[in-house]
């Protein structure tokens, strides 16, 4: 026999087929493809920044260019208030936005998924309490809470990730809860329970695999809002002061009077960077939603 028919092999070949089918649906979404292409390019550039550029140009004491120069042959995007190249700053800033965006989104989605699955699986008082808690955080203005958290904790990468992560999970929790409730009504869950499967088995083997595709689509959208939140916190001066980030660049552009001096070359690149990355993640997330949520495929766009 060419293909051994073990359950594991069957499962994997089915997963492969599902993946191919998902990609076929995804490919039909032009926005999703554009977003994916942009993300691949941006992530590659961000990862390769230390190889392709000279990081010492970020050090204020090592530069000799004049401050706030408009774009020229030597500095394509001009210089900032201390003579550093805006192009270099923007390039390196992408790393910060991507790392924090991904980490915060991961934290937020993990909290949201755990709360959502537990609330749906156990029901009763657990569910009531958890959903009451979720609704409270859903209504609470996330930025205000994130500001409070990052003010009282020591500044740094971990704090921003924590502040964004613990304030942005409620939507995921609600979504995952709804999806888990639908999954749990299916006969195979009942069968698993009848065969003596405990909570851990049912959640781990049946509920989570069924919920994960949707979680994946949500994560992509959460990264987009996490990047906006990161830039906002950095803009307010709550970021990691030792690293370059797009929000921090915009903060120094405002604080040093570059904006009122009309230094458009300093203002546009970081903002466009944020907008392009966020838009790419949003486009990918929407395309993934269409793939994993067949209800959206018929009506709508």
């Amino acid at each position, binding site marked *: 026999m060419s293909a051994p028919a073990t359950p594991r092999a069957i499962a994997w070949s089915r997963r492969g087929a599902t993946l191919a089918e998902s990609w076929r649906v995804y490919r039909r979404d032009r926005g999703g493809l554009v977003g994916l292409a942009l993300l691949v390019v941006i992530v590659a550039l961000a990862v390769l920044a230390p190889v392709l550029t000279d990081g010492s140009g970020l050090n204020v004491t090592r530069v000799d260019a004049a401050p706030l120069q408009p774009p020229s042959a030597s500095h394509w995007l001009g210089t900032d208030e201390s003579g550093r190249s805006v192009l270099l700053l923007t390039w390196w800033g992408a790393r910060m936005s991507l790392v924090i965006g991904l980490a915060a989104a991961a934290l937020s989605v993990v909290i949201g998924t755990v709360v959502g699955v537990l609330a749906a699986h156990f029901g009763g008082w657990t569910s009531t309490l958890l959903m009451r808690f979720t609704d409270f955080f859903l209504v609470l*203005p996330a*930025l205000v809470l994130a500001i409070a958290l990052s003010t*009282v904790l020591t500044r740094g990468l971990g704090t921003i990730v924590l502040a964004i992560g613990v304030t942005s999970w409620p939507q995921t929790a609600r979504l995952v809860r709804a999806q888990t409730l639908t999954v749990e009504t299916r006969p195979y869950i009942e069968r698993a329970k009848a065969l003596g499967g405990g909570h851990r088995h049912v959640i781990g083997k049946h509920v989570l695999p069924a919920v994960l595709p949707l979680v994946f689509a949500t994560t992509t959208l959460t990264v987009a809002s996490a990047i906006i939140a990161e830039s906002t916190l950095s803009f307010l001066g709550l970021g990691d002061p030792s690293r370059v980030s797009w929000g921090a660049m915009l903060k120094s552009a405002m604080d040093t009077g570059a904006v009122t001096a009309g230094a458009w070359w300093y203002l546009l690149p970081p903002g466009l960077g944020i907008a392009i990355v966020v838009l790419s993640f949003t486009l990918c997330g929407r395309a993934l939603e269409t793939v994993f949520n067949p209800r959206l495929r018929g009506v709508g766009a």
Partner: protein
Amino acid sequence: MTQVSEAPERVRPRGERSLRLARLVGAKIGGGLVSLFLVAVLGFLLFRVLPGDPARAMTRGAPVSAEQLAALRHRFGLDQPLWKQFLDFLVNLLHGDLGVSYTYSRPVAELIAERFWPTVLLTGTSTVIAVLLGLWMGTRAAWRHGGTFDRLSSSVALSLWSVPTFWLGLILLMALGVGVGPLPGLFPVSGMSAPDVPPGLLPRVLDTAHHLVLPCVTMVAVVYAQYLMVMRSSLLEEMGEDYLTTARAKGLREDLVRRRHAVPNALLPTVTLIFLHLGLVVAGAITVETVFSWPGLGLLTYEALRGPDLPLLQGTFIVLAGSVIVMNILADLLYHVLDPRVRGS
């Protein structure tokens, strides 16, 4: 069957219905009070427990003896057990006492009262404009979905949605406030009023309106997109419904079908979502007020986090979060009044 069961429904005494409504209102308000209490707990945890010893934070950097620290702790009640501190905090909060700001050396409640109305003016004006614009554009986009207007408005909304509020504000500030090249600045870039306004009500109103333009445009640009998307998808869901076919079959003009039948039904879910997204308006207010130095609660938050002035930040946190929760309770009640299906059941 339905006829039979509906008949007693209709003759149900009015008293029972109003009792039901009263119970519902009671439950909503009770839930809201629990949320407000949780905000107070969160405020206490965030600013009293998490930062460690407040006495040390107050004397940051200054050389103080152990006796001085102890005296300070005693003065602020920090030597009491935590539950006692929380109780005191809660009692003070109920009396409207939010402590004293480190930087201003003035009661926090007084500072917040001063800055409250400018924020209401800014967020109120922009929310009203954004809601009207978003609902109108969302309706148009959904009614002819797939058309040029739909595609154009959806992509513009998506792009604006991807832009950080403060960046848009900075761009507008540079382009329209400071002026680019030969173009002069058209609008003032900071504050709420000019120092040299002639006396009288009308010049002052005009001056404030002039100052309001840029912050307001920034907030509308970022916020209207979500209302557009919500209204669009909500109307799209109604589009296939049978009652629209019935309305058309009755011979109603397309315009009337939309205005009288489809839009009112699509509005209901939209109303709740508008209020649910109020937290975003508050977030927008913080950055927009920071960019344009608009003297509201957002700018006060920014000033507080720069210190950091913890009592002040605690005050703005409680007031901002509390008002969003209060608005949500109101929205929930409004929804029950507006929707006959929920009201009747």
